[in-house]
């Protein structure tokens, strides 16, 4: 049995039924599971909520503007930077909430818009390239493999079936490391795309918008998912389901702890099993 932590960490909703978590799985849940199972427990089982971080807000607003930009092409509307700026300004206010900016909000806002402008200049996507899909929720029923339903939202599928995921980053990413670290997500998207279309994707791309002082755009291409990558993903999903059944909510102390929002809960965690 898992101990409930009572430390006033924020509004605590009713713990999600484990059956619900076992029925569906997503790339973000799998990544959290891999990163730290105790973090998964706090976030998805106990549903502890924390204030939105500045970095998350930055990324959300950038995604919002990119979504509008992609939809504009999908709807065959002209590119108007003023309209996108309006979406950006509104999104920045709407999604702001109670963020601890530490006095850096004006700088962060300028940085976010600058990196978007850089992207619109440097993007490999031509103005008349019609997307195959923009921000679409899709799911893949993997019950024939004895696995849950995989769910996810595809940022963009370019013409010809190239899956794109947008990322914001503080540092210039290394290509190999970026593909390694985002492998689970890209493979999930490949499975979703193939299930939804009956076709193999023609490739995958990570589009990093790097918020350095001089903003950068880094495009990292990847081949279509190979069979061993799919097998590895399915093995991870098996581990996810089996681990949930066993209640494997153990902490994984390491470098990831530095940015973890559940640090205080983790330090009080007693192991969770009470005979």
């Amino acid at each position: 049995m898992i101990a409930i932590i009572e430390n006033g960490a924020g509004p605590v909703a009713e713990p999600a039924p484990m059956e619900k978590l076992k029925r569906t799985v997503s790339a973000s849940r799998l990544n959290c599971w891999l990163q730290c199972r105790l973090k998964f427990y706090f976030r998805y089982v106990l549903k502890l909520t924390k204030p939105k971080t500045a970095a998350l807000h930055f990324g959300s607003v950038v995604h919002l503007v990119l979504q509008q930009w992609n939809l504009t092409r999908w709807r065959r509307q002209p590119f108007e930077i003023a309209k996108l700026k309006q979406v950006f300004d509104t999104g920045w206010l709407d999604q702001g909430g109670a963020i601890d900016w530490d006095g850096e909000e004006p700088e962060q806002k300028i940085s976010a818009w600058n990196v978007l402008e850089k992207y619109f200049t440097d993007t490999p996507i031509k103005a008349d390239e019609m997307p195959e899909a923009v921000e679409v929720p899709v799911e893949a029923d993997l019950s024939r493999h004895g696995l849950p339903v995989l769910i996810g939202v595809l940022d963009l599928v370019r013409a010809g079936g190239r899956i794109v995921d947008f990322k914001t980053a503080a540092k210039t990413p290394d290509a190999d490391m970026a593909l390694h670290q985002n492998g689970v997500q890209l493979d999930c998207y490949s499975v979703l795309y193939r299930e939804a279309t009956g076709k193999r994707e023609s490739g995958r791309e990570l589009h990093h918008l790097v918020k350095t002082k001089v903003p950068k755009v880094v495009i990292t291409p990847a081949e279509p998912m190979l069979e061993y990558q799919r097998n590895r993903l399915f093995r991870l999903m098996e581990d996810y389901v089996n681990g949930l059944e066993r209640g494997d909510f153990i902490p994984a102390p390491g470098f990831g702890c530095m940015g973890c929002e559940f640090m205080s809960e983790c330090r009080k965690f007693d192991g969770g099993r009470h005979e």
Partner: protein
Amino acid sequence: MITLEANYSKKIGLPGYSSHQFSVTLKSELADIAQAPAESARLYAVLQSSVDHNIQQVGYLPNANGNGNGNGHGNGHTPPVEADAWKCSDKQRDLIRKITDEHKLDKAKVDQLAQDRFGKGVKSLNKLEASGLIEELLEQTGQSKPRNQRFSPPKVGGR
């Protein structure tokens, strides 16, 4: 007395996004722990044989529309698809119909929207394209949701 409990479970996929599963559990009492490996192997063989034999009976299957009585004997057999059947999932089809009906949208205009975006009619859209159309219809009818709530009710099931 030592009790050995063994369970064997199997789940297989079926046509029309169905699946079924069957599991059998047996308990056996052992006088000596040394008997465990042999008894475990015996139970495994018995359980697997039993599950494999029974799981071949597929039973009821929904037809292509998701609500009829399909062929319950064709293990792995795909039911015949109606000539004008939708290519997207049943949930997507129901959601497109629901939005169209509830907001009294002109079906010809919805079909034209599909033609404009994908070069094909609504019924011919695959699941990815249908998802895009649904997002567009939801936005047009003021029901668009933030990214992290896309799989939540009250939409007709997760997509």
